[in-house]
């Protein structure tokens, strides 16, 4: 265990999760990095000192195995960051959409609920120095895009769980949500789509993964913020016309 404590982060194999995991290591935290698929990013995290654990969070037995591995270490945790996420438009075929819904519920709601519930006793918080749980949700949790209705509604579920866990685990643990906007486009975003999205922000640019890490760090460093939502969206939620 490191001086600053160990943080479990899900979905750490790529993109924002990978950046946050590396940044935590750099800043002196120990990191348990959950990932779904092996990648160069996961290998680099291991090389940098992270404990990497593979699991497909849609599979109960793999989620249970992840939890058993973490509890088996019998070490206190400084925090948990729920970053794992599935981002897809809703399928047109109803049966496919239902299967998709089960995966979204599993990753965005069921896994965070179970992980928080099982690991809460390991969180090393005290009244004056509480531990942290951070849910990475989405600005769409408050204002959905109907083409992504399944995704948005399960992110709204995670947003709501933030408040339940903030109540349940106080005063020993702070629980907050970070709501990303257009932080890191996917390769599948066309140039036109990117431009359209950025026009909907007030700051006119992509945020970058570091913007999320800074928000994570601010929450870890502030002992008096709990039950809060922090949108990191360049002001997009305010720029949308009503």
């Amino acid at each position: 265990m490191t001086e600053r404590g160990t943080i479990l982060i899900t979905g750490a194999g790529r993109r924002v999760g990978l950046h946050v995991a590396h940044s935590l290591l750099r800043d002196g935290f120990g990191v348990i990095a959950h990932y779904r698929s092996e990648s160069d990013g996961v290998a680099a995290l291991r090389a940098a000192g992270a404990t990497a654990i593979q699991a497909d969070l849609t599979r109960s037995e793999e989620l249970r195995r992840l939890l058993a591995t973490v509890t088996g270490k019998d070490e206190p945790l400084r925090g948990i960051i729920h970053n794992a996420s599935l981002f897809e438009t809703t399928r047109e075929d109803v049966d496919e959409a239902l299967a998709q819904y089960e995966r979204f519920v599993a990753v965005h709601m069921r896994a965070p609920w179970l992980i928080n519930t099982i690991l809460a006793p390991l969180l090393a918080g005290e009244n004056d120095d509480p531990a942290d749980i951070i849910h990475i949700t989405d600005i769409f949790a408050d204002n959905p895009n109907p083409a992504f209705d399944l995704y948005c509604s399960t992110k709204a579920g995670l947003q709501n769980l933030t408040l339940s866990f903030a109540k349940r685990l106080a005063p020993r643990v702070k629980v907050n949500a970070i709501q990303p906007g257009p932080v890191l486009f996917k390769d599948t975003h066309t140039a036109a789509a990117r431009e359209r999205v950025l026009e909907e922000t007030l700051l006119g640019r992509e945020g970058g993964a570091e913007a999320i890490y800074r928000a994570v760090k601010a929450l870890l460093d502030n002992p008096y913020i709990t039950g809060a939502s922090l949108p990191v969206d360049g002001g997009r939620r305010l720029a949308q016309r009503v």
Partner: protein
Amino acid sequence: MQDTTALLDGKTALVTGGARRIGARIARLLHAEGMNLVLHYHRSVHEAEALRDELEGMRPNSVALVQADLLDTARLPALAESAHAVWGRLDVLVNNASTFYPTPVGEITEAVWDDLLGTNLKAPLFLSQATAPLLAEHHGCIVNLIDIHAVRPLKGYPVYSAAKAGLYMLTQSLARELGPRVRVNGVAPGAILWPEQSENAAMHEALIERTALKREGSPDDVARAVLFLVRDAGYITGHILPVDGGRMLSH
């Protein structure tokens, strides 16, 4: 991958009501980050001078004082210009100055309305308007000190609560008006510093009981949130960050 937020060394912040209490704590933290300060005060001349002397003892030529009654709206453009003139730049405006007292319905006068709306809403607007072109020169930002009672009314304080609600919306509105060159955010403290007027201990305890984290916050917690919004929140605008120990959860 770094975003566009930069270190604060050599940048300038104007902090209203910066001589005492939370304002002074914010000023100290920004100063410790290397910022030069223009500290506004109204009546607290001794506290302001003592804070300036202390901070200048650590770093000479880093703090300037400016006295003003913020209700004197006509003076605010000159206040903005003079804050800019000290070091030739202005990067951050912290609208912290505030008046706070009960206004029971039936006894509300136009004078208390003018005072509470004046300090908590009108002055932040006109000071933001006056500083906006100066802040825009260096991609600066504004941080407004709001209150969780902007969204949940404080019993006995309807005028104050409405003024802070106005400042809450003004924060979002100005984010829209001043982006992308100037970011505008707020901090909404809960129970941080018990007002100096003595209130009864039972009320204080009841308030702590309604706070999820079961304790009072410190001015440091608020100052740290302000520093985050100034230094590390280059992709956040129009947001009001509650620093309330989870008090909003209890309603």
